[in-house]
């Protein structure tokens, strides 16, 4: 069926991003918003809008019942979940399916399977996709954890099964450390995620994070849209992404892309999704997790492939075949995205407030944002206020362009991480393409020593 009206169950820049493709495709849009977002740009730009509750996300953007009612009231055919919020909530997708609403994403069953790290790992192992050495099941006791850690060799990592985005992860270098920290991690998991289940894995030192964009339709066609290098992170969250990855040579890239397709095909994936991998120093790679939604950093892929990924999502969701076959998809040049966060650039502490002055770079820069001068950046939501995306013929040219774009950006009234991003794009290791997920921690400790 052809989708005529989409309700966007999200806010901020990603809601605007979806609206822009809908307009291009002649699809009507419905925005939802909380009381804190009454004046938000996504609300102004949508054809219709529905107030769904007070500022805290639990009472608004995460309230699936209210959102489903809004779909019914407005007569939308489909829901686009964006990223975060309800996008990887299998129950919400299942509710949509039951109510005859098209959920723009994979089947609810796949979301639930991939949402459980244990299940995702089990499935990928069965499909022959490499996974990080570690526990197949939840680790229930300290004794069990100690024995497994001895087997796979320290350092090891404990992570909350229900966690994500780097929250609920701890690293242990010795049996003594593990003995001390085990119960604490279980308690934190229960506190933050309502579930004490933890997994134990080998900790890969100085790792790189590289992910593969996948697209699949309901007819069994699965393609990749190349990789994104996501190793520049702070607090286990991405800050800068680029494509292609400077680490991958021909053969290694081919093996990575083939593994990603194999995994996605094997689980019956549909729509757009991302297979995340961790790379060790020797180039060995392991499946980390699958993100069953559009990624924040999708513009990087759009830049190098020239494709509109939201359009692909909508076409697949309305039952079309993939717009292109694998041999029709190519990657040209280089692209880099920087995420602008409302936070102190040295201490990485959030900085909500009002943007008193705002100037974006001019010329050749894609700016995905939901703020303007005078916008209030709310303490209730994610600190990401914008994404800057530049592209060039090669990596060096693109780094120069990003340096310029960041230098031209002026944000006053709230603290922001542009000074940190500038340090990244001016860092020798980064410029050489020789860096791992420790890059920002290294810059931060250098900055602290310098003060």
């Amino acid at each position, binding site marked *: 069926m052809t989708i005529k009206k989409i309700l966007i169950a999200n806010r901020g820049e990603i809601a605007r991003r979806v609206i822009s493709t809908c307009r291009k495709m002649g699809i009507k849009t419905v925005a939802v918003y909380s009381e804190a977002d009454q004046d938000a740009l996504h609300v102004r730009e949508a054809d219709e809008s529905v107030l769904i509750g007070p500022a805290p996300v639990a009472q608004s953007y995460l309230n699936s019942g209210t959102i489903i009612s809004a779909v019914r009231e407005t007569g939308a055919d489909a829901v686009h979940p964006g990223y975060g919020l309800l996008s990887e909530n299998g129950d919400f997708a299942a509710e949509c399916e039951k109510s005859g609403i098209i959920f723009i994403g994979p089947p609810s069953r796949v979301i639930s399977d991939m949402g459980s790290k244990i299940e995702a790992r089990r499935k990928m192992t069965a499909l022959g996709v490499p996974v990080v050495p570690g526990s197949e099941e939840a680790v229930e006791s300290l004794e069990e954890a100690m024995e497994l850690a001895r087997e796979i060799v320290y350092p090891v990592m404990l992570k909350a099964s229900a966690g994500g985005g780097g929250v609920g992860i701890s690293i242990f270098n010795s049996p003594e450390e593990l003995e001390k920290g085990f119960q604490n991690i279980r308690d934190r998991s229960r506190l933050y995620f309502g579930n004490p289940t933890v997994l134990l894995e080998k900790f890969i030192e100085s790792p790189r994070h590289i992910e593969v964009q996948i697209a699949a339709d309901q007819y069994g066609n699965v393609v990749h849209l190349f990789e994104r290098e996501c190793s520049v992170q702070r607090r286990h969250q991405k800050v800068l992404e680029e494509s292609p990855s400077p680490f991958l040579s021909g053969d290694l890239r081919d093996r990575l892309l083939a593994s990603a397709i194999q995994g996605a095909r094997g689980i019956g994936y549909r729509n757009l999704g991302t297979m995340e991998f961790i790379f060790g120093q020797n180039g060995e790679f392991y499946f980390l997790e699958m993100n069953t939604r559009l990624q924040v950093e999708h513009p990087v892929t759009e830049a190098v492939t020239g494709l509109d990924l939201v359009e692909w999502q909508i076409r697949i969701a309305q039952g079309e075949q993939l717009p292109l076959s694998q041999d029709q998809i190519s990657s040209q040049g280089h692209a880099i995205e920087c995420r602008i966060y409302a936070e102190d650039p040295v*201490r990485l502490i959030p900085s*909500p407030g009002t943007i008193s002055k705002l100037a974006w770079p001019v010329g050749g820069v894609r700016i995905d944002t939901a703020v303007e001068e005078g916008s209030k950046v709310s303490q209730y*939501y994610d*600190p990401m206020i914008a994404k800057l995306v530049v592209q060039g013929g090669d990596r060096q040219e693109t780094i120069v362009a990003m340096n310029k774009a960041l230098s031209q950006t002026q944000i006053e009234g709230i603290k922001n991480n542009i000074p940190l991003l500038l340090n990244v794009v001016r860092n020798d290791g980064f410029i050489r393409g020789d860096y791992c997920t420790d890059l920002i921690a290294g810059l931060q400790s250098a900055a602290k020593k310098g003060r």
Partner: protein
Amino acid sequence: MALIEVKAETTGMVWKINVRQGDRVSEDGTLMTLESMKMEVPTLAPEDGTVKEIMVKEGDPISEGDVIIILEV
């Protein structure tokens, strides 16, 4: 003996208080965890001391610069 005001480093809410009145704390020990923009922000003890008074309770909204704990050092 001197009293130090420990202030909130960000605007948000009090997520978890890790200490009680009268507790002895060491420098860089976590006094409480604030929550802002869906991130945990730990408030650390600026130096060794004793918790003299806790000015907030869990769930309270706070603004950057609010005094949240008074330490006796």
